[in-house]
């Protein structure tokens, strides 16, 4: 019997409405007790002093690219989940744009087997919407669900054909599986490599307009309402999309949404400018789809996250090798590595007074769980909470600790971040997954 007692931390559990000093006791991989002094009552425990720190349920990421199988040079299930552990994550949902794509029972089972063998934290696979992610034929949703997928997505690409998307949504209602769409109309973003606007004009790059996302968000909401399906909008990036989603939810449509830490905090200026507007650069580490947008978009996204129009923060952790990024801008792979910086970067909103810490934690924990009903999956009851009996998943956080991002020190194989050398305020001190300490820093004090 193993017991971990976390003493005297500021426990924030949005699902239970807990927000105060308490101890958290984990016994045999599950939350046993939460309350003041509860830790003193147990004997033979591994003890952690969380005085001055925040104790939260472990984070849940709806959008992680683990790259395995097929792109192990970029990331593996081992390194990706290690990165997750360092970022406070205890559950990650793995996107199916692997090689082969996760479009069959066999592919899902192989990922789950590898996760069982090497993952540091829980991996929940996402299946492809279409065979080979080719946008032509539907995958066997029933077979994929039986194999263990928690949602379906062709992320990286949109399901462009409106009729096929309608049928994917319609068919999914039989299984109550969320259909997670990467909303960018391929025709409108053709040859574009960053947000269409004044920065793209300065750099002479072709743009991906905000409307490329918004037209597809509008289309897919209409299709989801037609057939009564659960549509999930991945990485919302524009103010226009926020307005469409808010209106759809007002009407009672089954539409959920996520936003990334980088779309919340970084603008398209990140691509071109470092210190001034005289000198430019072509920062491929800030190249991502959908692209980083403008100030007004960031503000709308933060407000939507605060108000619950956006349900969850998701990382879209997209590791790439050096050779995928140290090339011409148009040829560079889109995406950035995010698991290890997600908390620190998102904390900017809290430090700027635009989001409360409990709301941020909600959007990192129970928010994503409810979005995809992950706690209804057998074995995952209580996921995203510190309720007695729930999985022993805990993140211990120092919201005020400043640290400098050193990509070379990442656990992730992907060093592709625009945050290298920057200072973030807010750090994950330790992570406990399934009752095991999977990450600890020197700040963690054992008693």
């Amino acid at each position, binding site marked *: 019997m193993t017991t971990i007692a976390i003493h005297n931390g500021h426990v924030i559990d949005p699902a239970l409405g807990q927000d105060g000093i308490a101890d958290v006791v984990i016994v045999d991989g599950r939350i046993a007790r939460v309350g003041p002094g509860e830790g003193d009552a147990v004997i033979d425990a591994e003890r952690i002093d969380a005085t001055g720190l925040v104790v939260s349920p472990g984070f849940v990421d709806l959008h992680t690219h683990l790259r395995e199988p097929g792109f192990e040079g970029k990331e593996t299930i081992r390194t990706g989940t290690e990165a997750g552990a360092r970022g406070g994550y205890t559950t990650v949902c793995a996107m199916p744009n692997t090689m082969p794509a996760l479009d069959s029972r066999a592919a899902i089972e192989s990922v789950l087997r590898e996760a069982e063998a090497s993952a540091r934290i829980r991996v929940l696979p996402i299946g492809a919407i279409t065979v080979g992610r080719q946008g032509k034929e539907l995958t066997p949703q029933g077979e994929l669900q039986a194999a263990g997928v928690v949602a379906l997505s062709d992320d990286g690409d949109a399901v462009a054909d409106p009729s096929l998307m309608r049928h994917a949504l319609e068919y999914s209602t039989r299984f109550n599986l969320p259909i997670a769409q990467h909303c960018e109309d391929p025709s409108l973003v053709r040859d574009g490599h960053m947000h269409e606007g*004044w920065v793209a*004009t300065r*750099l002479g*790059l072709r743009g991906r307009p905000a409307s490329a996302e918004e037209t597809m968000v509008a289309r897919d909401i209409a299709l989801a309402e037609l057939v009564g399906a659960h549509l999930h909008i991945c990485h919302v990036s524009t103010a226009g999309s926020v307005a469409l989603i808010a209106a759809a939810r007002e009407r009672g449509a089954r539409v959920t949404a996520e936003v990334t830490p980088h779309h919340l905090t970084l603008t398209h200026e990140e691509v071109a400018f470092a210190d001034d507007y005289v000198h430019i650069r072509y920062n491929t580490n800030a190249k991502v789809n959908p692209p980083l947008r403008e100030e007004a978009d960031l503000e709308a996204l933060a407000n939507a996250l605060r108000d619950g129009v956006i349900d969850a923060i998701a990382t879209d952790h997209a590791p790439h090798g050096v050779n995928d990024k140290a090339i*011409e*801008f148009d040829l560079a792979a889109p995406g950035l590595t995010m698991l290890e910086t997600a908390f620190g970067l998102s904390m900017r909103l809290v430090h700027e007074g635009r989001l409360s810490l409990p709301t941020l934690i909600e959007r990192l924990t129970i928010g994503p769980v409810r979005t995809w009903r992950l706690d209804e999956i057998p074995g995952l009851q209580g996921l995203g909470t510190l309720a007695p009996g729930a999985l022993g998943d805990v993140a211990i956080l120092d919201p005020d600790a400043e640290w400098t991002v050193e990509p070379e020190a990442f656990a992730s194989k992907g060093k592709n971040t625009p945050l290298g050398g920057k200072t973030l305020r807010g750090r994950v001190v330790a992570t406990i997954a399934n009752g095991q300490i999977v990450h600890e820093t020197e700040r963690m004090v054992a008693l």
Partner: protein
Amino acid sequence: MTSTASAPLTAQGRRPGRSWEHQHVLDLDDFSVGEIETVLNLADRMREVLDRRIARVPALRGYTVVNLFYEPSTRTRASFELAGKVLGADVISVTANTSSVVKGESLIDTVRTLRAMRADAIVMRHSIAGAPYLAATNTDASIINAGDGAHAHPTQALLDLYTIKSRLGSIAGKRVVMVGDISHSRVARSDMWGLTAMGAEVVLCGPPTLLPRGLRAQDRPAHAESALPNVTIETDIDRAIEGADVVMALRLQSERQQRGLLPSLHEYAQLYQVTAQRLAKAKPDHVLMHPGPKNEGIEIAGAVAAGQHSIIEEQVTNGVAIRMALLYLLSGRTDLPGDGGSVTSEARA
């Protein structure tokens, strides 16, 4: 010869302490007025060398220039080759292919390989915007941008400035109208930096589908006002040309019509062709320019391209002089024959 290997490499590499500090020529956005004037003044002297019966001086003997062209080009490549040869440099041209990336030969590898062969300057033409910046951050050779995607063509802009100045006496206060495919034009982008720096009024004219977004000051936040030059946008060519000192027609590629940006070349010519009738609204002593290669009958009427206001051929000759001046400045040499001392300091004085 020169090596600054110990200094950290950045795209904006500068070599402090020299009279000419730029290590690279990537665009005119980071050129001061004084630096532009230095180039233009030196080009005057290079033009004099070029016009000699035997146009050959040994100023760049032992200096190696590699033309690295990832995109076909006749005039720019020939212009650089001639500029180097007139000054006695060793010049070779390499035609590369972006598909070599697939074979594992990255741009960075290629540039480093050329440097290892002791290339002093690499003149680079590439179809992707920003490629010369990638090169510049990975070598201590001088990178000269000979056109990168739709981004920049600084040597063309400098030759345009030089040609305008030599024909009209000055650039400040002149109304310069560029007509055509602004969106895809690296010439327009570099020209607008150089022209506005030198005090010209810049008017960009084209159909709405060929005008890039964000050029109007209201399209960008106040804190970024200086991030793009201050220009005027006009979709009506007759209004644009009114009172112009300089009219520059830009090449229209027929591909634009195929991609749905234009209904037809015929309609384009109807609405945007620079014709004698339209030029009648310009100033009487206006000049007509074109960066070439031109499509007569599409963006420019044949009669005006060959007419008395046209200075298109002079642009081409001046292009050699400008590239001579840039190669010489980047070389760091100060011993141009017939010169009593430092060319650059004299040119600045």
